[in-house]
């Protein structure tokens, strides 16, 4: 399947990811999660929450008991744990390593958290482990990286990263 079509097939949309995480957060904070609590947490209507939860129930990610209390199934919990981890690693990568300001790093990590594959997340984690290792090579690498001027001097002919046009220009417009 073409990548963009596969993207459309994703059961866990951005909104669904936030519904699942809200259930997890509420259970950790107050011990239970009802539709009303999720609506309050996400600042949306209960009707929207109920409608959004239907496909997640059908997919077996959440379970509702007779008292209308919601909890995550083992597969739902695994998904939430993965999403939260991906958000944390992406946020750390963008902020601490790339130097993006904290707020923007959080926004972009939030946009990507449910879309990053496990393979990419594992490699980013490995990279962060390497950064945290204290290896002298890391110190030299970080020193060199932090000395890089983030502003491109705009000479695509001699730039080793650009082929046939200035890539930096494309994202500055």
């Amino acid at each position, binding site marked *: 399947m073409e990548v963009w079509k596969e993207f459309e097939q994703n059961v866990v949309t951005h909104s669904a990811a936030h519904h699942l995480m809200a259930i997890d957060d509420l259970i950790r904070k107050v011990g239970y999660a009802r*539709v009303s609590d999720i609506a309050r947490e996400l600042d949306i*209507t*209960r*009707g*929207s929450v*109920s*409608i959004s939860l239907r496909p997640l129930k059908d997919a077996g990610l959440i379970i509702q008991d007779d008292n209308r209390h919601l909890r995550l199934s083992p597969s739902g919990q695994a998904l939430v744990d993965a999403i939260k981890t991906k958000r944390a690693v992406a946020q750390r990568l963008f902020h601490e390593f790339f130097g993006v300001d904290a707020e923007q790093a959080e926004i972009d990590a939030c946009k990507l958290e449910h879309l990053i594959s496990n393979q990419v997340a594992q490699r980013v984690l490995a990279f962060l482990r390497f950064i945290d290792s204290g290896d002298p090579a890391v110190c030299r690498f970080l020193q060199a990286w932090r000395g890089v001027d983030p502003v491109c001097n705009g000479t695509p002919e001699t730039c080793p990263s650009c082929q046939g046009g200035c890539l930096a220009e494309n994202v500055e417009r």
Partner: protein
Amino acid sequence: MSTLSRDELVSELSRIFAEEVEAATRYIHLLNSVRGMDRLVVEPILREGVTETIQHAEVIARKIRSLGRVPRLDIKVNCPPEAISGREALRQALVFEEAALEGYQDLLRRVEGDVPLEEFVRSQIALESEHVAQLRELLDE
């Protein structure tokens, strides 16, 4: 007396106002999503849903106005352009009607002690319970 401040109460009522307006919008969409013979059966029920949710929204808005405020409306409805069966339409209506009922039940707990408000919320609960019961009966669930 209720432990809610006036601001909190208006915020709670505005939330329910939004629920009702959103439900009316969803009913209108459901009304136009059912195709085939099923329309004959469910159209009057869904049409009644539109009318009643708008009436409920107006009652809540009046309540907010009586508190000297203007209701806040913040809704985001995204309904897919898919034809559905009459049964599925009723099932979807049941989902948001149950959510509305839960909303009023939640509000009742929060306004405990404020007798006029309690009575008002109780009457809304009675109406919503009737809707939910009617839909459950039709769905035989």
